[in-house]
């Protein structure tokens, strides 16, 4: 029997802040704006709740891409949360890039509650990017000793 080539179905985790991006995702839903089912959303109160450990944990457990969405800078429900998140994620992503993880696997996008279209477009383009990058093997096998 020929070996069946397993179709690549990426695992993509999306952290969405409750006030803007989660609502934006809801709006995308009620507007029937489709995006691939590979994306699974985790609701957090604010983008500043997203600990870099969550993102690394996702990669550790086999995620192929992690995206974080929050309110637009200046519009944070908690005034300043996304400003902190922005710095944290910039540094984290830069570190991942530094150790050779493709920067396309991580993304931050600001999506307001009114931007259902943007949410769906963002997810479509992110998923497309992950498909083009393929399976995330690097983060899994750093310790494969030669």
């Amino acid at each position, binding site marked *: 029997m020929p070996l069946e080539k397993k179709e690549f179905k990426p*695992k993509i*985790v999306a952290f969405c802040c*409750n*006030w*803007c991006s*989660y*609502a934006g*995702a*809801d709006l*995308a*839903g*009620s507007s*029937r*704006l*489709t*995006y691939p*089912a590979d994306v*699974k*959303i*985790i*609701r*957090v*109160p*604010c983008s*500043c*709740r*997203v*600990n*870099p*450990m*969550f993102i690394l*944990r*996702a990669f550790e*457990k*086999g*995620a192929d891409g992690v995206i974080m969405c929050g*309110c637009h800078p*200046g*519009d*944070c*429900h*908690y*005034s*300043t*949360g996304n400003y*902190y998140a922005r710095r*944290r994620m910039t540094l984290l992503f830069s570190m991942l890039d530094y150790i050779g993880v493709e920067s396309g696997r991580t993304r931050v996008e600001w999506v*307001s*509650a*009114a*931007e259902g279209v943007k949410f*769906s477009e963002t997810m479509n383009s992110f998923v497309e990017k992950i498909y083009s990058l393929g399976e995330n093997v690097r983060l899994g096998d750093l310790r494969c000793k030669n």
Partner: protein
Amino acid sequence: MQRIGVFVCHCGSNIAATVDVSKVAEMALMEPGVAHAEDYQYMCSEAGQAKIAAAIQEKGLTGIVVCSCSPRMHEATFRKAAERAGLNPYMVEIANIREHCSWIHKDMEEATKKAVILMRAAVAKVNLNTPLQAGESRVTKRALVIGGGIAGIQTALDIADAGYEVDIVEKTPSIGGRMSQLDKTFPTLDCSACILTPKMVEASAHEKITIYTYSEVEKVSGFVGDFTVDIRRKARSVDMNKCTGCGVCQEKCPSKKAPSEFNRGLNTRSAIYTPFAQAIPNVPVIDREACIKFRTGKCGVCSKVCQAGAIDYEQKDEIITEKYGAIVVATGFDTIKLDRYDEYAYSQSKDVITSLELERVMNAAGPTHGHLERLSDGKAPKEIVFIQCVGSRCADDRGKPYCSKICCMYTAKHAMLIRDKYPDVNVTVFYIDVRTPGKNFDEFYRRAVEQYGVNYIKGQVGKVIPKPDGKLLVQGSDLLDNRQILKEADMVVLATAIEPNPDVRKIATMLTASIDTNNFLTEAHAKLRPVESPTAGIFLSGVCQGPKDIPETVAQAGAAAVKAIGLLAKDKLMTNPCTAHSDELLCNGCSSCENVCPYGAITYEDKEVNDHGIRETRRIAVVNNALCQGCGACTVACPSGAMDLQGFSNRQIIAEVDAICR
């Protein structure tokens, strides 16, 4: 170990058409901790809720997962249902398999797979949920209304009539807003001032209403029920208590060259001024930039002529701090700037004006004392062209993508009024669509055409060319006749798009109220909560939420007032128990969390702890649960993981991540 019940909703066919709901329920039974799973047509219905209650009681469930629509929709419903059945409401988690799944995926197998994963994540989370108790916070029985236009006035009156104190903060020297600038109103052609002024007087005379004009909101802190607001009362340079409003100062003021804001810069006013005759309060303001005394130190005429001795050049801005339970935003609108619409020659010809400017031209108190005349040479126009949708419905960045909603009707009004008063003037309206949804609106527009002979042409104007003889050449198209039109006009009126008052951005940021890409404030729900901001305790009144006419504004103002009253009527509010807390055995006392808390909710205490037998006094972070809003910024700033957020704990989120990546 938890005993978890999983309830999968069909939502009629909304979910069931794309997600195999019974499969989701079946898979749920294989998850750790799940003791019960079922699916039902409408979980949010009374019968659905009864099923949840029955399962909680019969199976002794300690937590439940409802796979249904967005938690933003029914989380509260299911929490209440659980609570009635004796379960702590925070032992409920929602798996959003409608908005995030069935509505966006078409393939049943794929959608079902995803729904199962979302269910698993929710089950994994609920396994780690702990019962939480909501605290209580008090409600300050006073409301703040930002903006003193018709929306703000109406909201304030309604709240005050219900017996609560209301403060209005208005940026300009008088309340009245845009409506005070209008001449007549559609569709009944009432005189705007005649219906607005009594409301202004009523507001100023109301014992429960305090009006701060020439004032701005400077700082907002706190939260629903307990906002603290700093209001800057700008220096008026006139003592409000002494001024009698006689107006002599304005007459004698030698500096009369400042453009009149009220008349849209079409004429000038004195440096000491009240914006218009019916201004409330009837106390003038010195425009320090225009005032000779302030510019050169010499003059002081107003002080000399003021018999009441009310002029006070030394007056300084004053900050008032007041507490409020509710805040209503009623900041209104302005017309967009036309500097990027060169083709309409607005900046080249004085005879190309906006509709709001036409209101002033037609008004007896306006720059032409109500005579319809060309602003360039004062001649009576014979041919007037109205251009619709200037800057509205624009896909490019010059204008606004939305319909400004009021232009079709006010243009019909203008056209009708002109034809009525000056039957020899020809009026042509270039339109794209005439939009008249509203009571008596289409009838009104038809009257303009049928009774008053206004010439409506379907087609946009491409260009307005000022001619050397002072006339304006209007180049438009008639799409129905399929011809290009070249028309000479004496006056062109632009139905300029409206946009939210630019200050609203600053205010929204202070209030942490969300705002959309067009700077309109976002409502909590587009259909079901149209006058509330998603930020608790903030309500929306008038055009700050979206374009609307006067009757709609007044209706919304009343609705916002009712929502505010509903809040103020409560003595206490339940606070969100999903707040941060620090594990005192792990806390380093490093202050990282304190530095990122937007609410100042974290303080440090020297506390004696018993760390596995070691007793010592440590500097430990303490969270004030009434102030904490649960954003979680501190939890990430904390290097040791001592700070965690109830309801969204590190372990809960990690459990969700693990479930999704499994």
